[in-house]
């Protein structure tokens, strides 16, 4: 069973305590100026956005089949069995392929640093391993951010939508998007209005499958192509050898 976060935008009051708790948990600076920044960055893993007093949180979605982890040449990012997608800074070489590949644009970079790191929400893996909630879920005063088992949370989200269909969009964002994510979102507003990619656009196929279709063929391709190339080489040089031998033979016969 894997853990997940359910964010119910209709319950969010925009207090931004999750931002503060996240900063504290990850030892990042947090003050009024940073609280006012409306974007995620290397020093702000989660942000509460406000549009006409309707709130929306953004954070790493912790995909079930994360593109970032599949593209990383050194495996610096990986999905843990418990749910979080975590980052091992020691392995990282700084190619930033994870940033380009992520459909939610979650990995951020320390552009000013001389030994820069990828920065993103890692779903408090130490806390999760210790059986605790994430920092953002623990501090949330209204329960808008809730931590728990993914299956339980999906059931609960369905219930909430069913009981109050007029309050919600009829869709749980994250159940099937790009093969499912460990962050689930239900809201009154359209998630796309807050920068989330539209469900129809990103589809339900896990992104690593798009490259897998090609990468899986390489083990077959290598021996076959080697044989073909070697064969061509052999044939074209054999032809030369034969021509040479025939020429020799002819000359020999003529004398």
């Amino acid at each position, binding site marked *: 069973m894997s853990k997940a976060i359910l964010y119910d935008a209709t319950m969010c009051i925009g207090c931004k305590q999750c931002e503060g708790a996240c900063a504290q948990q990850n030892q990042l600076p947090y003050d009024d100026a940073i609280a006012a920044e409306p974007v995620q960055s290397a020093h702000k893993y989660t942000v509460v956005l406000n549009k006409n007093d309707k709130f929306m949180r953004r954070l790493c979605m912790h995909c079930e089949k994360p593109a970032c982890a599949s593209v990383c040449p050194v495996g610096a990012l990986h999905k843990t069995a418990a749910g979080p997608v975590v980052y091992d800074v020691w392995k990282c070489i700084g190619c930033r392929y994870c940033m380009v590949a992520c459909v939610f644009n979650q990995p951020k970079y320390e552009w000013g640093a001389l030994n820069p790191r990828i920065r993103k929400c890692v779903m408090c893996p130490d806390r999760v391993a210790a059986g605790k909630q994430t920092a953002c879920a623990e501090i949330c005063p209204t329960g808008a951010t809730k931590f728990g088992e993914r299956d339980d949370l999906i059931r609960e989200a369905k219930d909430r939508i069913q009981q109050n269909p007029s309050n919600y969009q009829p869709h749980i964002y994250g159940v099937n998007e790009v093969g499912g994510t460990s962050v689930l979102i239900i809201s009154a507003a359209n998630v796309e209005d807050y920068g989330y990619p539209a469900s129809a656009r990103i589809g339900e196929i896990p992104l690593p499958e798009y*490259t897998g279709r090609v990468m899986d063929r390489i083990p077959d391709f290598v021996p076959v192509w080697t044989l073909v190339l070697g064969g061509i080489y052999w044939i074209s040089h054999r032809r030369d050898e034969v021509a040479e031998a025939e020429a020799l033979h002819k000359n020999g016969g003529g004398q």
Partner: protein
Amino acid sequence: MKFKLTFWRVVFIVIMALGLYSSFVRYFRGLGAVSNMTDQFPWGLWIGFDCLCGVMLAAGGFCMVGAVYLFNVERLHPVVRPAVLTAFLGYLLFIVGLLFDLGRPWFIWHQMIYRNLHSVMFEVGMCVMFYTTVLFFEFLPNVFERLKWKTPITWINKIYPILIVAGILLSTLHQSSLGSLYLIMPSKLHPFWYTPALPFFFFGSAVAVGLAMTIFESTQSAKAFGRQLELPVLVTLGGALLVALWVNLLLRFEDFFHRGILGMIFKPSYEAYFLWLELTLTFVVPIGILSFKKARLSPQWLYLASISAVLGFITNRLNIAVIGFETYVGKHYVPKWTEFSITLMIIAMGFALFGLAVQYLPIFESETKHELEEPEGVAVMPGVLSHAGD
């Protein structure tokens, strides 16, 4: 030898000086200070040009090796050595470029120990590493001949079939895989350029560019080093280029048609302008020129057609790396001058190293034979190659 300050040497010095300044900014102020890359645009000019285009422009090496040693096209023999040299330098400089672009270049060796077999980037990295090694061995005979070491040459000759097959295999893999890098972004990259066929197109265009670059390079070095132009060579390459361009063109439009966007590419839009520029330079101009028999036999027209094709495919790579993402990101990316200056510095290093190699090594075989026949032939070299640093 007295050092003369020619126009091109001044240009070279200015480029190197600016490049060194930018390198200082890169390593002592960070990627953010030296480039216009941001969290929205994590890959910029260095990936788009230095890496994607650099590797493509070095494709002449495997194309010529394949043509001459695999398919026995003896006529092309004179261009194999310069093509292998260009490829070898190209890959070395590609690695130099990576050292600028990677955020933590001092850990580049990590990919040899922390292997992620699912990563296209891992595959490209390993192929480039092995192929650069293959190119090094293909290049070595030049050095051995210069030093007149007979035994090592026979060793290399013994493993040459392996080098040839391995070189072409590795090239096939990583040229196409550079396209596979983008397969994971179906919703980010604009539909003009996102297609499941990206790896095929990257390989197909590498072959075309390999031919075009060899024409360009032969003409250019004939001018620079005062050598005889090998017209039969150019004509053969021109014919092959025409075929390669037609194949690329037909596959490209078949793909547009197959994905149902054939109508969309003719409607004016920001992306469409760049696509038109790309298609004009890649296909319309060079195919137009090469369709005339007279042009196929003229060095000037062949030169022009090859330049157009090369520029067209460069536009293609930049469209994929930059333009194709702008709508999704909602922002434009224009490289900072320091980014350009590092790219220019790397290119200038390439030209200088090519010049030096030609000056000291038997790259052009006509000169080689001359030199081997009469040991005093070395004296001829400085006269021919006084432009080498240009």
